[in-house]
């Protein structure tokens, strides 16, 4: 395998958790609720997967528990933001702080223990003959295939079904949606919960396919990068795929340059994804300064029926 193919494989492996978290963020924000708790949710997803997988040895059970736990946290977020109309920024920050504290607390007992296995791979041996494609797609794991499928499903859901129309209506103009008979609160609750569960699955993917054991603060800011990626992707699942893999590539590029014996200290290479996030957001902001950014129009504002604006 040449350098580019290896980098592509690494980019997909590092990009999949980012992709899942970004898709979760897109679902949240399309419904009009900001989800800044992504980092805490990913950590909770990761730690639950580790604990259940190590204790029971059952991968499916571990994934389901991770999804359930983060879905419950998503419901807490929606209760605060939808029903109580609390400050969404603060609720997200609380989620991140609580998630990182609780995950460190729960994960203390299994810290550093190896997982019984990784995410199983789908072996498409007939692809192996083809040079680059075979190397990349021949042995991808189920979660990666699932994330690719999800991109397609969410794209179709958001842009080509009436459910997606309702979702977009709730995120753009909840008052109009309410008048049209769409259940604004119910839709917000469901998508915020589903989005949180996806972000939790992203955390599970981190430990199953990327970092093999639990460590405190394992995600190292990837949840926040995903929050940024939602903006790069302009709330669009197909763009999210490319953005997530681009960042996956950046993430693994630093590591690979280091392996090649670079003179640049590794600390600077590790800074690349964070700095590029800021620069790309600045570029997008500059380019789109006079254009609509694609932000759901009522993002961040709670909906109060019968309130005048």
């Amino acid at each position: 395998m040449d350098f580019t193919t290896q980098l592509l494989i690494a980019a997909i492996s590092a990009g999949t958790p980012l992709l899942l978290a970004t898709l979760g963020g897109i679902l949240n924000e399309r419904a009009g609720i900001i989800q800044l708790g992504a980092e805490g949710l990913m950590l909770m997803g990761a730690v639950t997967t580790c604990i259940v997988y190590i204790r029971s040895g059952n991968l499916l059970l571990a994934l389901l528990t991770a999804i359930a736990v983060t879905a419950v946290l998503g419901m807490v977020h929606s209760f605060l933001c939808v029903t109580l109309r609390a400050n969404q920024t603060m609720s997200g920050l609380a989620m991140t702080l609580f998630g990182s504290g609780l995950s460190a607390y729960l994960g203390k007992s299994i810290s550093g223990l190896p997982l019984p296995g990784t995410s199983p791979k789908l072996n498409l041996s007939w692809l192996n003959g083809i040079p680059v494609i075979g190397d990349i797609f021949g042995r991808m794991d189920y979660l990666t295939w699932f994330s690719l499928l999800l991109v397609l499903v969410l794209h179709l859901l958001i842009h080509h079904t009436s459910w997606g129309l309702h979702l977009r209506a709730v995120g753009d103009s909840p008052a109009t949606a309410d008048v049209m008979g769409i259940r604004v609160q119910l839709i917000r609750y469901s998508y915020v919960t589903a989005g949180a569960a996806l972000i939790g699955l992203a955390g599970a993917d981190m430990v199953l396919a990327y970092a093999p054991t639990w460590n405190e603060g394992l995600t190292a800011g990837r949840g926040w990068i995903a929050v940024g990626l939602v903006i790069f992707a302009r709330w669009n699942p197909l763009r999210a795929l490319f953005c997530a893999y681009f960042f996956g590539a950046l993430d693994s590029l630093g590591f690979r340059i280091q392996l090649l014996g670079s003179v640049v200290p590794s600390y600077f290479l590790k800074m690349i994804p964070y700095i590029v996030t800021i620069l790309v957001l600045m570029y997008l902001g500059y380019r789109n300064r006079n254009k609509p950014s694609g932000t759901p129009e009522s993002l961040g504002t709670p909906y109060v029926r019968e309130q005048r604006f």
Partner: protein
Amino acid sequence: MSPKNGSNAAAAVLEPAPAKPGKRFPLRLEYDSSRTRSPWWSPILSVILALLLCAIFIAANGMSPVTVYEKMFKGAFGTSYGFTETMVKAIPLLLCGLGIAVAYRISVWNIGAEGQLTVGAMAATAVTIYFPDLPSFWSITLMLVFGVMAGALWGLMTAIPRTHFGVNELITSLMLNYVALLALDYVVFGPWKDPKGFNFPGSPMFTAAQSLPVLGTTRLHIGLIFGLVAVVIYYLMVKFTRWGYELRLIGANPTAARYAGIHIKRHIIIVMLISGGLAGIAGMAEVSGVTHKLMQGISPGYGYTAIIVAWLAKLNPLGLIITSVLFGGLIVGGYSVQTIGLPSSISEMLQGSILFFLIAGDMIHRFRVRRSV
């Protein structure tokens, strides 16, 4: 009741449904958006509820919550050593929390105090490395100036993308935290590593001339004065100056402020410079007053804890002093439970849940129970 209302449980309970004769339920909840002032007891209640919630997790771990909380409280406030340690931790929380409060006044969500503190500490250490033989007064002054400037620069790097490129400051400030921590790792493992430090990552120890004076034999240093002076200046500035008036105006109604001709962009840049500068002082005070050298983990998440300190204090100066002491105690208490085999992250868990209950409590009190007619 309309079918729309009936089908959504949350809406049915909380929405002020149009009053109709013959309702089934005699009481209903009404949302009053004019009640923006939250009651004085909401921070206290949220602390109590957070303690109860975390007690469940502690009990699930097979420990007695009473023992754990007793241990934490005794560790933080029970002994004179514990109490001065709490005050030592309260200093960076007060300085960072104050900076965060200034920014939050106009809804600039700075969560980069952690990074701003780190670069402040690095800049102060740079003074000790490049100007090692300055007399005490000049050395401390220069460290302070460098710390403030580095923190303010880090704040500016968040403010400029926000004002000129429309980039959400939450993301920028957080990304810069990671950049600052990696830069810290680089200098303590690389160019600034103490050659006599037995390969331990960290800068050489500061000399007495480079260390802040301490109170008697305790570790409580003069940084406390910096914090208290800053709080008084904050109070006076916000209360009595034109700048403070404009800040309050933007906080109350940004659209009206813009029509009144207030330069919101300029204000965002100024508050981020102040916010970063104060965190920079905190970083300088940490290295110069407490650790006396630059090393990894210079901050156990002060920048994040300070967010809750500021929010719990409702951005109020006196409240900031009280909450920073409380959270200083929480951090010290977190360390003291390590002796009974619990991780210190228990304090982070408490902090997150306090914030949850606080924002919920602020909103819950806006709902009023009314007898439906």
